[in-house]
């Protein structure tokens, strides 16, 4: 079975631009969560979606948004990029909301 897949793996953007990151969960998993990991720190929770509905939001500005599609894949959008948005963005997939999470390989975003 394929694991959690994220695309792209690396991305370079300019300040002020917008970016869309994509995640495909493990087959049969209905929950997708997004995390941001800046260098030297642990991942920080951004969003969780379950059955296409937002179930949780972390302490991130409104420039961050996400959605989940009928096939349970998900997109994370970040508008008006700042240098501080440079980070590894991780997607996690799980069967339900309170179950074991499995992470993708991440998208490394660099904002210049």
């Amino acid at each position, binding site marked *: 079975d394929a694991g959690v897949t994220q695309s792209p793996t690396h991305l370079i953007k300019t300040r002020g631009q917008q970016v869309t990151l994509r995640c495909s969960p493990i087959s049969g998993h209905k*929950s997708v969560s997004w995390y941001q990991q800046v260098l030297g720190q642990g991942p*920080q929770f951004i969003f969780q979606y379950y059955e296409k509905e937002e179930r949780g939001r972390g302490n991130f500005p409104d420039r961050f948004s996400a959605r989940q599609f009928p096939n349970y894949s998900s997109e994370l959008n970040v508008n008006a990029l700042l240098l501080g948005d440079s980070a590894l963005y991780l997607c996690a997939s799980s069967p339900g909301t*309170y*179950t074991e999470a499995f*992470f993708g*390989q991440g998208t490394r975003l660099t904002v210049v």
Partner: protein
Amino acid sequence: GIQVEQSPPDLILQEGANSTLRCNFSDSVNNLQWFHQNPWGQLINLFYIPSGTKQNGRLSATTVATERYSLLYISSSQTTDSGVYFCALPPPGTYKYIFGTGTRLKVLA
């Protein structure tokens, strides 16, 4: 909010040595996971262990939820064990995982 502290923050071992990593948390938990983050950033699941003891090869983990700590044991360490080890758990009634401060392990050949 819930606090998740890991110790030690850094650990250097000679290949073949054993080690114990600790995760302390400040609130009750229903889920707890241990991850190994490799140098490429991939978070690899080691254990899903809200309570009790589990073993997988050279690794084992124990969570004592009533005393609010979890331990990860690595025996006969190998250079491929190098990386950062995180414990993570969701505060009660929430869906988000709070990650610990991490333990950076380096195993020398």
